[in-house]
């Protein structure tokens, strides 16, 4: 547990960057510090690993006052990820990942094992370990930047706008990865951002800061439902507040039964099933319903035509959501990635449902028209149908 009390940082010239900040962060929480530039969010973050020394106030970690600890030892226990990534250009990826273990004087086999185990976590091949940072793309570099913060089993990870310099698609992928790692490894993550979408998507609790003060510290839902001040309302933006109004729905309530095929079937079977069910996307699962990939029109045309089996023809990079995900997050993802549909999986990555654009239209329709959808649709249908009937006669 990390507890921050009356934390203040006054810079020379009397400017208060952080002004009597008080909050408590539980173990395993994902916290976002958000605010405009100059709101003190980065300064607050940097006081946690004592890159900036507080003017007054205390930070305690599990009851220990940080200011009484050795700053260097403390930083080795806290992961640190920055926007500029900051990988050492003269070191291989392996050496970059195991930089903190090296400082802690681990032996070589232990470091090598850590590097191998970690690079798997972020879906990069082991051969990358011997490359240099310049050979990797920005997104890949930041994956390594994240790994570097995990390598010595740090419990707390500080991230200073880690994905700010990446393109939207890469950023989205890395956000998912980070959230997944945080949940899986049970890390406490404190995250500075100025992107509200990012904060809502990732954080368990959001700390909104303005001119060095904490304006509101609460869960995303509570903040969206009850903005504390006009500043928070403005900061959220009216479009988010409107989105929030319809009762919070999860994907489980609106998803439909997906059409799936098991992987050992032939491509002909797959095509026949698609025609029979009149779908353009067919999900591929194994015998236990685990989602493996999908087939769509592209899988049967173009250069992939020569494939014989489903395993070869399918696209195995599926973007999915987990059960329990809020519908609005799912909608945002479908729009951002320009997807036609998105499968829903449970915690064992078993395929359980599907959200399509048509589904979403239905849901929006329901919220707008409430109880009268049936009459309305009937009326529309009869109105549009009658003239055609007359013409055909």
């Amino acid at each position, binding site marked *: 547990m990390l507890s921050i009390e009356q934390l203040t940082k006054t810079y020379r010239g009397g400017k208060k960057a952080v002004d009597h900040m008080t909050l408590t962060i539980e173990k395993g929480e994902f916290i976002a510090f958000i605010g405009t530039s100059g709101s003190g969010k980065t300064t607050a973050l940097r006081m946690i690993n004592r*890159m900036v020394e507080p003017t007054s106030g205390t930070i305690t970690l599990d009851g220990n006052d940080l200011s009484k600890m050795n700053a260097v030892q403390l930083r080795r*226990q806290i992961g640190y990820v*920055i926007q*500029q990534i*900051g990988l050492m250009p*003269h070191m291989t990826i392996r050496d970059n990942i195991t*930089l903190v273990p090296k400082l802690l004087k681990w032996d070589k086999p232990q470091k090598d094992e850590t590097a191998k185990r970690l690079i798997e976590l972020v879906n990069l091949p082991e051969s990358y370990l011997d490359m240099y940072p310049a*050979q990797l793309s920005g997104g890949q570099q930041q994956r390594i930047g994240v790994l570097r913060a995990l390598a010595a089993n740090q419990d707390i990870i500080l991230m200073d706008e880690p994905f700010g310099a990446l393109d939207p698609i890469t950023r989205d992928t890395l956000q998912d990865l980070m959230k997944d790692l945080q949940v899986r490894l049970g890390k406490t993550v404190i995250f500075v951002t100025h992107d509200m979408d990012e904060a809502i998507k990732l954080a368990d609790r959001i700390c909104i800061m303005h001119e060095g003060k904490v304006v509101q510290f609460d869960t995303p839902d509570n903040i969206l439902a009850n903005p504390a001040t006009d500043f928070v309302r403005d900061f959220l933006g009216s479009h988010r507040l409107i989105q929030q109004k319809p009762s919070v729905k999860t994907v489980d309530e609106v998803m439909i039964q997906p059409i799936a095929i098991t992987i050992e079937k032939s491509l002909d079977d797959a095509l026949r099933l698609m025609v029979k069910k009149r779908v353009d996307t067919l999900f591929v699962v194994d015998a236990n319903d685990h989602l493996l990939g999908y087939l769509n029109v592209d899988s049967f045309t173009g250069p992939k035509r020569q494939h014989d089996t489903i395993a070869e023809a399918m696209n195995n990079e599926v973007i999915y959501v987990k059960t329990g995900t809020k519908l609005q997050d799912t909608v945002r993802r479908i729009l951002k990635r320009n997807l036609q549909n998105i499968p829903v999986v449970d915690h064992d990555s078993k395929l359980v449902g599907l959200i399509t654009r048509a589904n979403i239209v239905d849901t929006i329709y329901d919220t707008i028209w409430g109880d009268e959808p049936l009459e309305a649709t009937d009326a529309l249908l009869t109105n549009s149908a009658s003239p055609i009937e007359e013409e055909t006669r």
Partner: protein
Amino acid sequence: MMEDLSKLSTWEQFTYYFRENGMYVLEQFMSHFFISVYGVLLAALIGIPLGIFIAKTSKLATPVMALANIIQTIPALALMAMLMLVFGLGKTTVIVTVFLYSLLPIIKNTYTGILSIDKSLTDAGRGMGMTRKQVLYMIELPLSLSIIITGIRIALVVAIGITAIGAFIGAGGLGDIIIRGTNATDGTAIILAGAIPTALMAVIVDVILGWLERRFDPQKKQQRLEKMI
């Protein structure tokens, strides 16, 4: 079997000189080389730590750099003459002169090298728990090594020239042979016998250190790696 040397062409005289005095030239070559190297090494020993120090304490950078600049403006012969009053005739005075001349390029390049490092790298290093010493040895020095080597290279090439002048105050070296040539009647071949090895030494030093410099240049390394993919 004394030949009449005046009947030979300059080139023949030159080769004759080498046949007769080859060992002597080599001896002077080594002596010349070591005077230059000692002076530059001494300057590196003082200049690199000083360069790092002024890069960290920005207040000292201007006065230190100004002082090194002033030394550089004094003509080599004048500086040597002044130092001679303290150190007397011989090698020591030349080594001290070379040392003083080498300070500026070495300090300046170390200072620039350290300052040119991306702040986010040292920030990341410190944030991960490196001590100041570790930041210096694991990040700052490796990344500025190529620029520091450039400074040493410039200093050493200049030093070889200064050492040649050092023959005037009895330090020996290839300058000795050049001066002998200027004093002799029709001494062109002897001048060449001193001047060509001096020039050769400067070029070789320049090429070798230039290669080292490229080897340690992180930017060049990146370009090499990018070509590999």
